[in-house]
């Protein structure tokens, strides 16, 4: 697509002003400065956008799956780590149980001490049971949260969100295919910046990188964190069962549960976005587009800086300007899905802050 477009523009730029189309004639035609100037910027814009938006399609296509995804607690990946930590704490368990039993049988000082030891014993054995059940338990937790999430997301149509995200980052409908992924309004911002000064182009594709790369990284991070907490689940159980280390263990268990149930909040965010989009009449929470004639002007302005320089004010313009104008005169950035992405990225922080210390 990129190649096609650049070839197209090159051909236009060369052929139009040159009378003879022999190789020598083309080589000698004096329009190369502008053409290279224009081509470079065009290609830069295309490449950088492709780079910053790669895998956007992937995220959009299986957004719901990405939200629902959970590590398999019974799988070998989690189990390997879990077994390691299990082997790490087994001796500890044995030691503590023997010591407590020994204490109960022989030393057994005050009744209070006895009671304490008994309760400790109980908690230890309980912990052991739970740990031996941990894969089942964890997978049950994961499945529960996944089912809940699915139920919540069933309330809304995810495609609404994805379509609007498409509108923000990707192509709107009825775009020619080769322009498809390059004509959203943010992209046009990027285009303008690149044509002004090629280094500005970098800063205008930062939004894409933050949003799209951020989403990609975030979903994997959640997955990894759940894997971590699942792997050290036995340890947290052990720590939770002692009085001295109860605080630490509580903290760890809380983390486990929070990270597992995080997806629910993502689902809620999705629903919120959907509702906002559905309920808000078109044009609300959006930057109104410039009038059509100004769009045309701007479009020709963008391309015209290049095209006009090569003595063909309109041919270059005609290649892109309808698209540009269409996008410019349609409402610009829709903020709701845009902010929705942010909300999805910020969800963990909120949850960590809000739901601290809910365990006894």
């Amino acid at each position, binding site marked *: 697509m990129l190649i096609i477009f650049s070839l197209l523009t090159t051909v236009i730029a060369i052929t139009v002003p040159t009378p003879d189309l022999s190789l020598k004639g083309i080589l000698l035609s004096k329009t190369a400065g502008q*053409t290279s100037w224009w081509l470079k910027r065009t290609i830069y814009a295309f490449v950088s956008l492709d780079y910053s938006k790669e895998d956007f399609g992937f995220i959009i296509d299986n957004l719901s799956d990405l939200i629902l995804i959970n590590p398999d607690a019974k799988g070998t990946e989690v189990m390997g780590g879990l077994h390691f930590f299990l082997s790490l704490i087994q001796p500890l368990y044995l030691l503590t149980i023997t010591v407590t039993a020994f204490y109960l049988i022989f030393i057994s000082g005050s009744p209070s001490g006895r009671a304490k030891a008994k309760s400790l014993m109980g908690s230890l054995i309980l912990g052991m049971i739970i740990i031996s059940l941990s894969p089942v338990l964890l997978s049950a937790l994961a499945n529960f949260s996944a089912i809940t999430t699915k139920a919540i997301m069933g309330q809304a149509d995810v495609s609404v969100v994805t379509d609007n995200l498409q509108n923000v980052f990707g192509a709107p409908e009825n775009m020619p295919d080769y322009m498809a992924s390059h004509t959203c309004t943010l992209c046009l911002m990027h285009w303008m910046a690149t044509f002004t000064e*090629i280094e500005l182009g970098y800063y205008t594709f930062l939004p894409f990188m933050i949003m799209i790369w951020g989403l990609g990284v975030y979903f994997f991070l959640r*997955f990894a964190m759940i894997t971590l907490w699942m792997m050290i689940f036995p340890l947290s159980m052990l720590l939770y069962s002692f009085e001295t280390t109860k605080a630490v263990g509580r903290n760890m268990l809380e983390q486990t549960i929070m990270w597992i149930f995080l997806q629910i909040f993502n689902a809620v965010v999705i629903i919120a976005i959907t509702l906002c989009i559905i309920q808000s009449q078109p044009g609300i929470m959006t930057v109104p587009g410039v009038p059509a004639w100004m769009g045309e002007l701007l479009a020709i302005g963008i391309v015209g800086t290049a095209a006009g320089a090569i003595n063909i004010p309109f041919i270059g313009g005609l290649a892109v300007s309808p698209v540009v104008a269409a996008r410019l005169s349609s409402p610009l950035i829709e903020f709701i899905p845009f902010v929705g992405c942010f909300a999805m990225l910020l969800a963990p922080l909120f949850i960590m802050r809000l739901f601290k210390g809910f365990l006894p």
Partner: protein
Amino acid sequence: MDKHKIITVLVIAAFFMPIIYADDTAGEDSLEAKSFAKVLGEEAVKGISKGWMIWMCQDLYTFLSSITGHLREYIIANPPIDDLKGVQGFFIALMQPFFVLGIVLTSAYLLLYSESPRGRAKAKAVLVRLVYALVLVSLSPLIIMLLITFSSNLSGAIMDYTNVDSTSADSAGGIIEEGSGHMHHMFDVLTIIHRTGGVELLLLWETFLLIMNFVIAMRYLLVILWSIMFPVTLLLFSFTPTKSIGKKFLHQTFLWIFVQVGWAIAVLLIESSVRGMDIAMPGYPMAKIGLACLFLFLTTPRVVFGLMDWLSLGVEVVEIVNAAPLSMGALTMDEMKVEREVIVEEPALDNL
């Protein structure tokens, strides 16, 4: 020659020259009319210079990303205990007189001025603490050696579960290398298009890899710092007024020694979660995973030791060792009460 004359001359020159050479001095393409042949020639040479630039950055990349090939060595890295011993001996020698002073004073108090049984008990507690701390201090090289060996062995054992030693694409090193390599590759492309188009990406992966290298080196140095300060830490920890500081120091000591365990867990985590993701959702974009794994490697110690600070456990252990002989309830309580009172500033004078 007068500088300001020069300046005036320069101003004139500066205003004339652009007229003579209508050329962009930044060295980038201009809008002047050139023939295609000329531009092709230019672009060829520019391409050479850009390629050269890329070559240099490639060298830098191989230089910085070499860490991904040696993750195990880097994570296991610990200062050789023999270097520390001598210095610790020096610090122990430095601490000895304070201990002697403290013990002598306390015992003198015990013998001469002990009025209340409570004060007596307090003094006893302090004395016992001091003696134990003295023992610990003289043992501190051994303790440090124990801790370091333990943590490095533990992290090694954790990493035995992974294939970190191989540089294959599904080892942690390979994945991290891909995360930065993707950006580096993109930097190449953008640089070919425009000379300074990819500088920011360069800075991005530079930062990631530099931080990885630097954090490990920093931990190495800080382990040395806290291990040679261990006797001081124990001294501060054993005196009641300076106890809080000693606690903080102890916390730091444990923290920095055990960070490597966090990294080992990070390696295990990265590999297993990538494998899990491979099963759970095949075709997950690898670049994102690589970036996330860079992030994970840097933050997992923070998560593991930050959210659940089981380093306080280490402090607890030392506590228990200190309080062992007098752990029979009452005396300890008493001591604790005393401790509280020391720090409260006298309320009697407040309404003066």
